[in-house]
């Protein structure tokens, strides 16, 4: 059941019931954030993320990737829509299913593969892996596994800019509906509201936190209602509709950038894979997979772009071939790269070792 039941302009719609009964939304007027150029770019990045992640799954199954592989299949439209609206100088803290957003923010196929495969040439140098990667000094935060923790970290980056008198920067972070249950998320949102920071927090409500359904995760009827509690603006996006995600998140980012304070975007969707590649996700009912929620955002985006005449089938096929080739070549290259050598590792967790070497060495020689 879908009801239009909120008078405030920023609440587009509100679903009732603990598992939202998504049935699709009527077409809204096109957002100025959705242009031919950014829609094409977004689709291209979604395609790259999808093809790269398919390769990651193969590498995992063939034993080349240790630990885990956590894919964003089905969430690319939402993810890319945040990354694509951020720019250099912004702060971005992606989460588990944000391969597309990461690439839109400037991450690469090469560094993704290097991190997953543990290449010593990657940004994490084998010290951390898979989705735990970033370049914090460039505003690209490296998530920790503890959900909700990155909200306040992004707030801190924005506070630093405020202290320095820099304006116009935005912070963006993503989280799943399960992550909204943490104290850390709550504290971060509350803090963002108190400081009126230019942060956009995107909640991907993919209906299952690992295996736990929403009725065991939260009791409120709609996560979007939480925006009011934090004193921040709430917006809803259709999670598997690229045009809607680009429009809604683009407007949220613009609003934050122009000083309107924190923005919470909630989007319903379904992850089309398990929590990780080790998980067959048998807990997701077939009826949900067959519902509009289960529609693949990549297919939907392609159809829409073709209908609008913003992309031709030949172009899309050509893009796929180019990306597949790049992923294959990069994977082969990274598989030949050096892995970390324990005897070369400095085994030092302190940044000040160089300047205070005589002191720390003395204390930490074990």
């Amino acid at each position, binding site marked *: 059941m879908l009801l239009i039941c909120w008078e405030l302009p920023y609440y587009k719609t509100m679903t009732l019931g603990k598992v939202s009964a998504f049935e699709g939304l009527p077409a809204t007027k096109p957002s100025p954030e959705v242009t031919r150029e950014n829609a094409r770019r977004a689709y291209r990045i979604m395609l790259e993320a999808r093809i790269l992640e398919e390769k990651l799954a193969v590498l995992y199954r063939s034993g080349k990737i240790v630990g885990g592989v956590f894919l964003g299949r089905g969430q690319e439209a939402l993810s890319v829509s945040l990354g694509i609206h951020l720019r250099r100088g912004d*702060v971005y803290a992606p989460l588990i299913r944000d391969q597309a957003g990461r690439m839109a923010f400037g991450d690469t196929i090469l560094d993704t593969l290097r991190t997953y495969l543990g290449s010593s040439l990657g940004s994490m140098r084998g010290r951390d892996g898979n989705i735990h990667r970033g370049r914090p000094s460039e505003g690209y935060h490296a998530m*920790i596994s503890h959900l909700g923790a990155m909200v*306040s970290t992004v707030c*801190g980056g924005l506070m*630093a*800019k405020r202290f320095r008198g820099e304006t116009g920067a935005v912070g963006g972070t993503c989280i799943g509906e399960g992550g909204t249950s943490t104290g850390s998320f709550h504290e971060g949102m*509350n803090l963002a509201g108190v400081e009126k920071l230019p942060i956009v927090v995107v909640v991907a409500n993919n209906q299952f936190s690992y295996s736990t359904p929403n009725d065991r995760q939260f009791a409120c009827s709609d996560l979007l209602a939480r925006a009011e509690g934090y004193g921040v603006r709430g917006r809803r996006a259709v999670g598997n509709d690229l045009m809607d995600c680009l429009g809604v998140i683009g407007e949220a980012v613009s609003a934050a950038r122009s000083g309107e304070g924190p923005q919470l975007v909630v989007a319903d969707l379904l992850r089309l894979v398990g929590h990780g590649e080790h998980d067959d996700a048998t807990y997701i009912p077939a009826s949900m997979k067959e519902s509009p929620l289960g529609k693949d955002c990549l297919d939907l985006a392609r159809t829409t772009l073709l209908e609008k005449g913003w992309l031709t089938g030949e172009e899309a096929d050509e893009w796929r071939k180019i990306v597949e080739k790049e992923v294959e070549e990069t994977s082969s290259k990274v598989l030949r790269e050096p892995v970390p050598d324990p005897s070369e590792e400095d085994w030092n*967790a*302190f940044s000040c070792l160089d300047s205070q070497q005589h002191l720390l060495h003395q204390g930490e020689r074990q």
Partner: protein
Amino acid sequence: MSAITYLEAIRLAQQKALQEDPRVFIYGQDIGGFGGAFKATKNLAKEFPGRVLDAPISEDAMVGLAIGAAVEGMRPIIEMQFADFSTCGFNQIVNQAATLHYRTGTSCPLVVRLPSGGTPGGGPFHSQSMEAIYAHYPGLIVMTPATVEDAYTMLLEAVALDDPVIFCEHKFLYYHLKADKLPDTVLPFGKARIARQGRDATVVAYSAMVHEALAAAEELTHDGYDIEVVDLRTVRPIDTDTILASVARTGRLLVVGEAWPWGGVAAEVIARVATEGFGLLDAPPQRLNAKETPVPYHPALWGTHRPTASSVANSLRQLLEL
């Protein structure tokens, strides 16, 4: 100049840091116009508008904010109202701040000030000593100043360091301890100090326990013993060389800590001396810590729960007879 307390030294260090480094800001509960629960930031909000900010009661988000700001080049100082409450920000400290440099190569220069240790009537949730817990995590520097001078210089050093620093300032020392002036020169962090020279036994202590150890050493002069007291100053890094050199002189070791014994700083010191300086010992190394219960409320219980000059002296007498 009137006498400067340990608390005032902390306030003055923060004032100096704010004056000299535009990257510094202070964030914590009630630290703005109110000046902090202990007044460690008194008048600083007025003197440095917009740089001494009240935080919501959100220890996790306070530390998270500091991490994000540090990554962007700031030098945040976080005031926990009591060390005990830092457990609510524990995740950000140990999993994000402590791991950041190792994982990403990006430094995370921040200071978390922990008003630590017991005071009469503090009870279980306003008395804890958390240094061993934080020292357990690679990537965190843990400072435990015992003097007014160290409170001042080490806090300034903490702000200047590129790593996250847990600054354990002892509440019991806030008002009791006084100095005539603040030092110009600094004994570098990571270096222990011989607080009292002696030849018969070494007491290794830190923070408020240094003063209990010094009083015990004084008491033992009446028994004809000359006790050496080593003030660790920082518990991580720990200055094993100075400890071993002292044990080499005395042959006997007692380690005193206000925290619980299990897996603590005293245990670490003894482990290091046993593994690296076993041959220096004339007797089994001993430790004296708090009793293994939560910190009790009533002063009569609290005074027995923590090591005191009297219990340190008793432990020393036993050690000297071994």
